[in-house]
Every structure is written in C-alpha cells, then in structure tokens.
C-alpha cells in the first residue's frame, strides 16, 4: 500500500497540477487525455460525490497538505482547481480541517 509522495519542498506549478488532474479525470471518465477539456466542469465527466471525495484525498497525498473534501465543488474545473492550488501552495501551507 503506497504512501504518498508528500515530500514536495517546492510548490507545484499550475502546469504539473493540471497534468495530474487530467490523468485522474481521464481515468474516471474512461476517455483519452486529449479529450479532457480543462475548462469543462468535473461533473460533466461523470464524477460522482464518491469520486470527488476520493480524489480530494489523492490530491492531498500529491500536494502534501490538507484539502477540504468539497474542493471539487468549490473549484469545479481542472483549470480553476489547478490555479487555486498553485496559488495556495505559494501563500504557505494550508490547513483547512483535519484530514
């Protein structure tokens, strides 16, 4: 059972976050990366609430800090979420609620 690679010392770039999210969305929606539109709502790729919460957990492991389970409702496209998280990373480590 793999532990997270949560030892990022540098902030993740918006580009890296976008690529990571595209990979996740394409797996859930069972489509090709090239078909994923980063300005499309997550819900339009068939993400249900179980997927959204699970993805918020995987995202925590990826970025290395705590993320609210409802993040994908707050930032509802790949673009918005990647933008938010890269800015968040810059403005220090966020700790919203317990994991």
């Amino acid at each position, binding site marked *: 059972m793999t532990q997270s690679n949560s030892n990022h010392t540098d902030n993740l770039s918006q580009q890296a976050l976008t690529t990571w999210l595209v990979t996740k969305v394409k797996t859930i929606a069972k*489509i090709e990366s090239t*078909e994923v539109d980063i300005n499309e709502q997550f819900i339009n790729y068939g993400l249900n609430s179980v997927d959204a919460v699970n993805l918020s957990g995987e995202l925590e492991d990826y970025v290395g800090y705590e993320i609210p389970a409802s993040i994908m409702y707050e930032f509802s496209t790949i673009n918005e979420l990647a933008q938010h998280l890269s800015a968040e990373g810059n403005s220090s480590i966020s700790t919203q609620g317990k994991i």
Partner: protein
Amino acid sequence: MPINNTIIDIIQDRAKNTPGQRAYTFITGNGAELNNLNYQQLELKSLNIATAIQQTCLFTEHQDASINHQPRILLLFPPSLDFITAFYGCLLSGAVAVPAAPLDFMRLERTLPRLMAILENSGACTILTTDKIYSEINSFFENVDKELVVKSAAINKFKISIAKFNWLITDKEMVEHSTQWQPVSIEPHDLAFLQYTSGSTSKPKGVMISHENMMHNLEVIHKVAQQNQDSCFVSWLPMYHDMGLIGSVLYPIYIGFHSVQMSAISFLKRPIRWFQAINKYKATITAAPNFAYELCINKIHIDNSSAIELNSLDLVLTGAEPIRSQVIKTFADKFSDIGLNPQAILPSYGLAESTCAVSGNIKLTTNTFKRLNKQSFEQGVIIEHNAQTNTLPQDDISSIELISSGAPLPSVELKIVNPVTLQPSPINHIGEVWLASRSIAQGYWQQPNESENTFNQTLSIDDKSVYLRTGDLGFMLDGQLFITGRLKDLIILNGLNYYPQDIEISVEQSHPEVRSGCTIAVSVDSQDHTALYIVAEVRAKAHELSDEIKEAIRRKVNVDHNISIADIFLIQPGSINKTSSGKLQRNTCKQDITCNRLKCI
C-alpha cells in the same frame, strides 16, 4: 405495560457493572484517537443532555393515547461521539430522536431544503448540535449573500426560523445536573427515533421506530452476528442512517463491546484507513454497502510493506444497496492475501421500514451464488442452470448469476407475493417481498396514506396477518432470499419481466463509445402498449457516430433479450439522472422522457 428491557436500561446496567470499560472511540483520518467514552462517561453525558431536554421541552400529558405525545428533537451533528451521547440523551429524556445529515455549507442550496422538510414534517422545535456547527450557521447567515436568501425559499425559511428553535449545544460544558433527571417509563410502542428515508426532497418519509422495534431488531441481529464482550466494531458508516446507527452504534452497547468510529469522509479520501483501523483494533465486525467494497478493490493496493492483517474479522457485512456478486467475489479474492476470511463476508438485506436487518444468516459459500436459466427468469420463474458456474463463459447469455441475501432472520415472517393479485407467489416464482415481525416500524410520521399503503397490507387470502410491502422483488431458493430489483423499476414487455440493470449492461457492452454505469432503461406505458426507452451517455466526441451507436444498441439488446426498443436518447457525459451518491434515478429519467426534457447530443 412498560417494557422492562430498553436501551435505557442497558446503558444504565453497563455504567453500573462495567463503568471503566471503553464503549466508543472516535478516530481521525490519520488514525489518531480523537476521543473515548467509557460506559460511565457515556451515561453521565447522556443524562446531562436528557435533563437539559426535559427542562426545556414541553412534555405534555397524553389524554388521547392515539396521539403521540413525545417531543421530537433534531440531531444535527458531524460524525462524532457527540452524536451518540445526544441520541442517548433524547431516549433517556423520553423524547424522539430525529437524526439528520450534517449540513454542507458548500452546497447549502441542496442540503438545506431536505433539512427544512425534515424539520417541518417532524415538527421538531429543539435542535441538538455542537458549538462549531451552531456558530457556523450563525456566521453563515450573517455574511450570506442576500440574493441567495431571496432566491432559495428553504434558505430564507431556515434563516427566519433560526431564532425560533430551541438550540441545545451539547459539546459545551454542560451543567452537571444529571441528578435532576426524571426517569421515564417506556411503553412498547413509544418511539425511539424517526429514520428519514431518502425519498423525495420535498416529502421525506420519517420511519417511526419504536423502542420495541429497536430491541427486537437487535435481538435478531445478535442471533446471527454472535459477537461477544471482547468483540470490536470498526465503522465509518454515517450514524444518521439505519445500518450505521443500529449496526455500529446500538448493537455494540447491546452486547457490551467496543465500537470504533471514523467519518465516511476519512474512508472515502483514503479507503485504506478502514483496513488500518480494523488491523489496529483487531476488529471482529464491520459493515458497508456494495460501493465501498468496489472502492477498496480499485483503490487499495497491497504490497509487502503494508503490514495490514484482516484476519481478526469474523463478520464483514454487506447491505443497504444491491449486492453485486462480482464485487463480492473480487473483494474476497483480492484481500484473502492479507488474511481476509472469505467465509466472514455476509451479504444481507434490510430496510429502515423494518428497523434495519431482515435477512442474512448464511456466510459466503458456493451456495450463496446461484446460476439461473435466463429465459425462465424473464418469465418470473426460477430454474437453476444445470452447468457448473465455473465452466460457463463470462458472457454466457443463457443464464444469469445472482447472490443471495441470506435467510430471513429468526422470527421474521417473509412472504413472496404477486404484487397484482396480492396472493402468495407459487414456489420458485419471483414476487414482491412482504414482511411481518416485531421489527416492522409503526409507519411514516404524519403520513397516514403512505403508511396505510406500505405498512398495513393484507393478502387476498386472509391469513390474519398484516404485512409491510417492501417494494422489492425477489424469490426464495434453498431457504435463502434473493433480491432481484425494485418493483417500480420492473419493465414488463409482452408479459415478460425485464430488470433495467440487465438491459443496461447490454447497452453498455454494445459500443465502445457508450459510457459504463451511465445508461438507463425504462418502460413507458401508453393506452395500448408498453414501450422500452434507452437513455445512454456517450463519450464527448461521439456525435458523428450517433447512428452507428444506436444501431449497435438495438442489435445487442435484441440479441441478449429478444426485445425491441421504441427510442434511444444519446446524451452528454455526466448528464444522466443520478443521486448525489451515484445511484441511477430511473423514475426522474422516465419523467424527463415523457416530458421531452432530455437534451440529446
């Protein structure tokens, strides 16, 4: 006459006899113990809450015995031990607990209408909650966008009523006044709690669970679960639902063993946390719906460094939603490497209208899975398929495989009934599941018509019994119950029965552009005939293939089931009707078809 063994007596007995023993533990997402309650602390906290309720709520004398006189108290809690003490506090006060899902401030427009409807239907005027939720609610409405309040009737209504409710904050230092608690005498039909079922948002149905219902269900659960004082339950199930409440909160105290709770969010974020807690506490019992086992299969990867063992488990319950035999087989197989005993998996059937559990006493064996002749199955007749299950190809279309939900629990009377003639179905025939037992609830709160139609039904051949109509279809085979689907979803074409799930699987397999898990099959009745409609999500760029896809769907459904389709609607990814937990909503989809509301690609 009062009943002499209620959950109140049990709490007091445990506090007296084993005061220092751990009753409940709540763990955070990273597995740390957030708080613990032993039986003495549990009793004291609950009594303080009970006294506060008794001193602020109106307990009117009941001149008319037919009118329920117990105040209803809403429980608005995050997953926590505070929910448990508040629940017991209600029962100890003589009031009726009304558990509600915690408010999600991110999606208030969706979560508040349901809460408002529950408050209105139950008539609860006292709300028990935590300091944090209470201040969140107040600060939300201080800073809320005025337009949102004007736009949403439920938010507006809630804002106006906040000041009118009697709020009891149960996690703040409560006055130590448990000595002022007035003992209550419980009659068998006195209500313990209202279990609101998902139903429609506008008209949620509050299943009335009496103290007697609760005790009877616990008694029959124990006959099968057979846990003892050294057992341990690890659960992430929401405590405001019947499986979490009856199974993981009440059953442990009924027997006197430790219950370890974590939030559903902790599990959903990292499914492995469930396994880690089972390993740490050497849990003997756990429970979850089918989707959770599927999530574990997809998300938990075993390697040698994990050091997680599941061999302490002797009961792994699956219930609360349709059980898929492939998921159970894969789960049992995948995690047997880390000590999971496949025999421990216990498929079960239950519903809130029967308190919680109905059937489930046969552990997983080869007998749990039955392969049936498909042609006769469509006619509602059960004939076991001759060939050995393992010699058949996966896509064999002459047979289908079903998983049993176990045998009816002791003292539960179960009948398979023809839903049209209301006569018992002949042996080996599919019919509606009807139930009679002391676990059957008292009805739906303040909904006499719905209560009558569901809870007060008799067979056309009067056998002097009153039954609960479950709305579920199934059959009995070798003493075991098999659930085949919901009565209202059944598609009847030319006198033959088709389950939407089976047709939907064919649709998914018909063309690679059709998205799996995102198709709906429904029938629509008109004056002279019944027509089959298919709604299917197709991948984003499939519109130029639309004719080809439709043709493939027609062909595959015809080959598999020998039926023809009236019309096919291809829609965009994510646009099929689903609930927030991802269940297909066939009925709303049907309305969209008849009202011409579907947006095709």
